[in-house]
């Protein structure tokens, strides 16, 4: 492991394990709590690890950004990564992804579980895509048991749609499920502007 002293391995590996799973930079503070090490020790470990990856000419690097550590691709391989993103990423939202985005837009804050219930299928992958693209973000946690992560739409979502606020979305109140069914029928059957 390059320039890393051998007895540093378990601690360094624990840091690697945590950071590899993280989607956001992990602060020294959090790492120090998880590993029960001092913040200084964490920073020292991370610094030496970052140097060793560099010395080993790896395709990834340990970057200190946004108040924390994260793995990211090495700038030397940017070309491959760009091609990968272009090749692999869809250029438009699938109907399923658009529906999921719409559900989040109208029902926020909403958990993955609630989205799955409305869609009838697991929507984790789509939610991840939408939040990676910055259209959707976490807005809190459910207070109930399980404390599910709650999602909402982002500033970027409004910008891209040319909306000022969420209230500018066409209203949906006709479809609130709690309305008694007879009322629902009557409302729905009223000739709408689009027909």
């Amino acid at each position, binding site marked *: 492991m390059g320039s890393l002293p051998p007895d540093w391995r378990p601690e360094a590996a624990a840091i690697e394990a945590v950071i590899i799973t993280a989607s956001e930079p992990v602060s020294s503070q959090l790492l120090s709590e998880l590993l029960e090490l001092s913040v200084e020790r964490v920073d020292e470990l991370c610094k030496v690890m970052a140097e060793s990856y560099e010395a080993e000419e790896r395709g990834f690097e340990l970057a200190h950004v946004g108040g924390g550590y994260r793995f990211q691709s090495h700038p030397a391989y940017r070309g491959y990564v760009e091609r990968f993103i272009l090749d692999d990423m*869809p250029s438009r939202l699938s109907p399923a992804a658009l*529906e999921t985005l719409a559900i989040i837009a109208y029902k926020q804050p909403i958990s993955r579980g609630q989205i799955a219930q409305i869609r009838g299928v697991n929507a984790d992958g789509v939610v991840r895509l939408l939040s*990676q693209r910055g259209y959707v973000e976490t807005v809190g946690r459910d207070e109930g048991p399980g404390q599910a992560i709650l999602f909402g739409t982002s500033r970027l979502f409004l910008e891209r749609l040319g909306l000022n606020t969420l209230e500018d979305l*066409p209203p949906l109140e006709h479809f609130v499920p709690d309305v008694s069914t007879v009322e629902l029928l009557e409302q729905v059957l009223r000739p709408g502007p689009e027909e």
Partner: protein
Amino acid sequence: MAYEVHLDVYDGPFNLLLQLISAEEVDVYAISLSEIVEAFLQELRRLEQANLELATEFLLIAATLVELKCRRLLPGGDDVDLDEDLSLFEARDYLLARLVECKTFSGAAKEIAALESLASRSSARRAGPDERFDGVAPDLLEGVTSTDIHRAALRAFANQPARSVSTVHVHDDEITVTETLDLLVGILPDRPRITLAQLLFGDTSKARLVATFLALLELYKNEMIDLVQTANFGDLLILWTAKDGKYAVENADDYDDTASSIL
């Protein structure tokens, strides 16, 4: 299975009892089924948690015992005709195949649980491209308008699957056919062409479906509407064909029962 029975004529594992009976080492006449069942129920009560597997296996073996005993107790066992005997064999073969299949998949299920538990010790990296690549990926919302979002929401909520949690105990919507007929007769003259999906609009509760369907049939019978379906499993198109648009709901056949009570 570890469950044991303790009878005058036999003491030991329950499934072995069957083996002994079929090898004629224990006489099925001497076995008291009620005694076995009673003992088993006590055993189940003693167990702190319900053991579904144990119970299932017990039921299966007990059912087989009952059948064996019946067969030997009933007169005429010697001269059953060949067909009957054959069909009995077939039934047994079928039962055996089912039993083997069930055992096979329950073994496979345990393996799947073991694999999942092993794999769950690792967590996948799901981070995706960082902000340095923001400009690379095409904007997925290119050309998407708020109307598209609105339409997608309507689609999503209309196709929402029926909820699995029943709320019947909270508030049971009594939907009557008569009431639905009333509603339809009020609506259809203004909407001479409408699909069943539009008419239901996402409310696919059984009660609503049944009531609407029966009401439509009633209207059809009275030649008030025409029903068109252009493709297999296609949406049903409802055409209002009545001249005067008047329909005496009281004429409806005895639909006093609510749709929900039909279910």
